[in-house]
C-alpha cells in the first residue's frame, strides 16, 4: 500500500465485462459497488436487529427457522443468551463498519468526490479498486464466523478485552469467532486506509482549473475531513486488532491478564490490560462516530442548499465546524471510559472537550436553521430526509450533554440511554443522510428517477418509526435499564418490559419501511422514469454539469473550468435562479464570502 507510483490516470474505458463491472478501476463503479455492499450489509444488520427485538419483547417466542442459522444458538428456534449476544455483536459490527462507514463515505465519496472536484478519476485507481475488494473480503471473513462451530463472537462491537482475548473458555465464539472478527476488522482498516489515501490526494491534487479549496462543495469537504479522520483512526485500530489476534494464535499477553480464573482453572496470561484495549479501541472508536456522521453533515447541507435555493449562511463556518468536530473527536475518546477504572482526573480532562464538541455541532445546526429562514424550500424525498436528519441530529445530540458529564454518566453508562443516543445520532441520522443522498443523486448515478411517492411513504414511516424506537430507549436508560441484556430478569427491569414490546413493534414497522426503499431502489434502477435532463434538481456543483450517467472520464471531451463558488443560488442579477460553477456568466458578487 505504500508504493506510490501507481499512476494510471487517465485510463481508457474498459471493454470486458469483468474490467467494467467487477474489477473496475473506475471510481464510479467502485462507488456503486460500495453502495451495493452497504445495502446488503444493512439488510443483514436490520434482520439481525429484528430477531433481537423480537426476542427482547417476547422472550420465549420461537422464530421459525432460526435453528437453521445456528443449531446450538437457537435450539427449538428459541434464542439462547449467547446467540442474542452474538447477533448483537454482528449487528453492531456490520452496521458501524460495513454500512455507516461504507455508504456515506466510501460509496458516495467514491462516486462524487472526483466529479465534484473536477477530476477524471482518483489518482491511484488500482488502490481504489483494491480498497473495495479488500473491504468486501473483510465482510466475507466477518460473515464466515456465523458458520463456525461455535458461531461469531459475543463480545459486542467494542470487543472489550480480556473477554475477547481469553479464548473459548470465555464463551461461545470467543475463540475462532474473535479471531475472525479481528481479522475482518484489520482487513477492513487496510481497505479504508487505501480509500482515504485516494480521497485526500484527490482533494489536494486533482482539482480542475479554477477549483480552489473553498470552491469545493460541502460534500467534498466532508469527505476530505472524513478521510483525514479515517487515515488516523483506522491506522490505530489495525495494530490493536493484530495484537488481539496474536493473543489468540501466538500465546502473547497483550490483553490477557494474570491469574484470571474460569471454571476453577487459572488461565494463561500475564499482566495484560483491559485498559490498553479500551484506549486503542476508543482512540479509533470515537473518531469512527464522526466518520459515520460528518459525510452525513456534508450530504445534508448539499441536498438542503439545492432544495432551499440558497447557499448556507456561511460556507466557511460549516467547513470549520466540521474540521473542529474532526479535531475534537480525538480529544474526547476517553468519555467512553468514565467508569472503566481510568484515573478520575483524566475523566475530567476528557469531559471538557466532550462538552466543547457540542459547540461546533450547535453551530452546524444553527447555520442550518438560520439558512432555512427566508429560503424557498422545495419538498421532495431528498429534502424531507435531509430535514429529518436535522431533527434526528438535534434529538441525538442533546442527550450527549448527559453522557459528556462523568457524574451523570455514572447513572447512564451502559444503559439504554447510551444506546438511544448513539442510534439516533450516528445510526438513524447517518442513515437519513444516506437516504437523502440516494434520492438526490440517484438520477446522476443511474440516469433514472426514484419514485417520489414511495420515497415519501418511506420517509414518513422511517421518521415516525425511528422516533418510536429510539426515544423510549432514553426513558429506559434513565430508569436504569442495562444494555446488552438478552432478557430482563431483574426485579426493577420487569416493569419496563411493556416498553420493550412497544419498541419491538415500532422496529418491525420501521424495518418494513426500509423494504419499501429497497423495492423502490431496485425497481427505479431498471424501470424508473428516465431522468428528464442532466440536472433534474437544478443544482450548481460539477456533478450536474456532466452527462447522466457521467461518461467514463467524467466530463467527456471537455474538462470543466470553474468560475464560481459552489452554491450560487438566487443570485441577484443572474439570468436564472442558479448559476453553475462552470457557467461563464459574470456575477456582481461572485467573490468569496468574507
Amino acid at each position, binding site marked *: 500500500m505504500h508504493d506510490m507510483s501507481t499512476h494510471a490516470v487517465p485510463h481508457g474505458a474498459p471493454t470486458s465485462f469483468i474490467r467494467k463491472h467487477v474489477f473496475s478501476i473506475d471510481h464510479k463503479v467502485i462507488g456503486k459497488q460500495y453502495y451495493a455492499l452497504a445495502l446488503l450489509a444493512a439488510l443483514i444488520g436490520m434482520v439481525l436487529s429484528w430477531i433481537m427485538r423480537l426476542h427482547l419483547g417476547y422472550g420465549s417466542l420461537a422464530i421459525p427457522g432460526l435453528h437453521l442459522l445456528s443449531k446450538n444458538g437457537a435450539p427449538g428456534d428459541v434464542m439462547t443468551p449467547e446467540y442474542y449476544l452474538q447477533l448483537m455483536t454482528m449487528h453492531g459490527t456490520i452496521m458501524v463498519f460495513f454500512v455507516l462507514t461504507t455508504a456515506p463515505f466510501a460509496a458516495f465519496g467514491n462516486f462524487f468526490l472526483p466529479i465534484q472536484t473536477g477530476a*477524471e478519476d482518483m489518482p491511484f485507481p488500482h488502490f481504489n479498486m483494491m480498497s473495495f475488494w479488500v473491504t468486501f473480503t473483510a465482510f466475507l471473513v466477518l460473515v464466515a464466523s456465523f458458520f463456525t462451530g461455535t458461531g461469531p463472537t459475543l463480545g459486542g462491537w467494542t470487543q472489550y478485552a480480556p473477554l475477547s482475548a481469553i479464548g473459548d473458555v470465555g464463551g461461545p465464539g470467543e475463540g475462532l469467532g474473535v479471531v475472525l472478527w479481528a481479522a475482518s476488522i484489520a482487513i477492513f482498516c487496510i481497505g479504508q486506509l487505501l480509500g482515504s489515501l485516494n480521497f485526500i490526494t484527490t482533494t489536494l491534487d486533482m*482539482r480542475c*482549473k479554477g477549483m480552489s479549496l473553498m470552491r469545493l462543495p460541502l460534500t467534498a469537504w466532508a469527505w476530505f475531513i472524513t478521510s483525514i479522520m479515517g487515515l488516523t483512526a483506522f491506522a490505530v485500530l489495525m495494530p490493536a486488532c493484530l495484537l488481539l489476534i496474536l493473543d489468540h494464535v501466538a500465546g502473547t499477553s*497483550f490483553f490477557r491478564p494474570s491469574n484470571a480464573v474460569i471454571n476453577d482453572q487459572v488461565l494463561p496470561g*500475564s499482566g495484560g490490560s483491559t*485498559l490498553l484495549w479500551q484506549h486503542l479501541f476508543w482512540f479509533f472508536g470515537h473518531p469512527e462516530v464522526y466518520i459515520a456522521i460528518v459525510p452525513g453533515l456534508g450530504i445534508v447541507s448539499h441536498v438542503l442548499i439545492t432544495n432551499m435555493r440558497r447557499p448556507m449562511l456561511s460556507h466557511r463556518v460549516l467547513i470549520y465546524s466540521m474540521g473542529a468536530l474532526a479535531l475534537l473527536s480525538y480529544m474526547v475518546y476517553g468519555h467512553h471510559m468514565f467508569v472503566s477504572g481510568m484515573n478520575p482526573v483524566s475523566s475530567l480532562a476528557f469531559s471538557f472537550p466532550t462538552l466543547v464538541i457540542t459547540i461546533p455541532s450547535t453551530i452546524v445546526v444553527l447555520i442550518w436553521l438560520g439558512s432555512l429562514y427566508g429560503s424557498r424550500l422545495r419538498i421532495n424525498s431528498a429534502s424531507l430526509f435531509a430535514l429529518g436528519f436535522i431533527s434526528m441530529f438535534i434529538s441525538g445530540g442533546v442527550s450527549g450533554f448527559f453522557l459528556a458529564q462523568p457524574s451523570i454518566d455514572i447513572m447512564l453508562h451502559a444503559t439504554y440511554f447510551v444506546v438511544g443516543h448513539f442510534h439516533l445520532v450516528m445510526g438513524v441520522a447517518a442513515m437519513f443522510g444516506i437516504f437523502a443522498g440516494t434520492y438526490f443523486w440517484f438520477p446522476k448515478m443511474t440516469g433514472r428517477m426514484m419514485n417520489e411517492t414511495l420515497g415519501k411513504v418511506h420517509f414518513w414511516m422511517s421518521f415516525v418509526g425511528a422516533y418510536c424506537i429510539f426515544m423510549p430507549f432514553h426513558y429506559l436508560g434513565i430508569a436504569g435499564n442495562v444494555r446488552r441484556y438478552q432478557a430482563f430478569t431483574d426485579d426493577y427491569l420487569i416493569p419496563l418490559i411493556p416498553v420493550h414490546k412497544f419498541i419491538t413493534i415500532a422496529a418491525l414497522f420501521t424495518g418494513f419501511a426500509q423494504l419499501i426503499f429497497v423495492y423502490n431502489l431496485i425497481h427505479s434502477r431498471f424501470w424508473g422514469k428516465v431522468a428528464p435532463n442532466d440536472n433534474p434538481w437544478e443544482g450548481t456543483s460539477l456533478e450536474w454539469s456532466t452527462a447522466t450517467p457521467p461518461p467514463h472520464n467524467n466530463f467527456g*471531451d471537455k474538462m470543466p473550468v*470553474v468560475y464560481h463558488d459552489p452554491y450560487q443560488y438566487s443570485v441577484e442579477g443572474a439570468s436564472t435562479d442558479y448559476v453553475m460553477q462552470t457557467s461563464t456568466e459574470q456575477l456582481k458578487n461572485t467573490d468569496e464570502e468574507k
Partner: protein
Amino acid sequence: MATTVHEPPKIEPRRLPIEGSGNGGWRNLVPAGGDPRRVKDSSPPPASTGIWVALASITMTFAAFTSAMIVRQGTAPLVHITLPPILYLNTLLIIASSITLELSRKQIAAFMGAGRDKDHSAIPSRWLYVTLFLGLLFVAGQTFAWIQLKAQGIGLATNISYSFFYVLTVAHALHVFGGLGGLVRVIGKVHNSALRRSTLDATSRYWHFMGGLWVYLLLLLWMKL
C-alpha cells in the same frame, strides 16, 4: 514527469492537457474575478502528496504500538531484555542505504535537469542497485536476529517485552519490504525509460522514513526494555 504516452489531443481540442493530475490542485489559488488564466497550470503529481498521506498513516500505526507499550508498561512493568547486537549493524546498513539513495537521486536529478530526459536508457542506476542491496542486507540482518533469538528459545510469547520486540521489528520489516518493492519498481522504470521524478522522490521519501522509523524503534526498544 512528461513521459507518459497519451493520445495526441485530436478530438479533444478544448480538453486541457492532463499529466497525472488535475490542473487546479494544491497550488491552485483563487482566480480573481473568475479568471482561470491566472491559475498555475501545474500542481504536484499525486505521488508526492500521496506519499505524505501514506507516511502519516504509518506514523499513526507505530504511534499506536508505542502507546500500547506505554499503557502496557503501566499495568505490568516490561521486562528488561538484551537486544541482539546485530541490530546495531543493521542500523548502520539502513542509514547507509538512505545515503546511497540520496546520492542516486542527486545523480538522476542532475541527469534529467541537464535536459537529457529524452534518453532515459542512460540514466545512472548504479547507486540504486547499491541501495537495494543494502536494503536486502538489512532485512537479512533482521531475520538473522530473529533466528538468533529463536535459537535461544526466545519466541513471541516468551514475555511481553519480546512480544513487543517481535511485533515492532516484524511490522517494520514488512514496511521495509514495501520500500524494496518500490526500489525494484524504480529500477524497472529506469530500464523501461519510464521513470518519473515524482516516483523516485516518493520512493526515496518512503525509504528515508523507514530508516528514521527504524532508529526510533531501536531507541524505543533500547530505552523501554
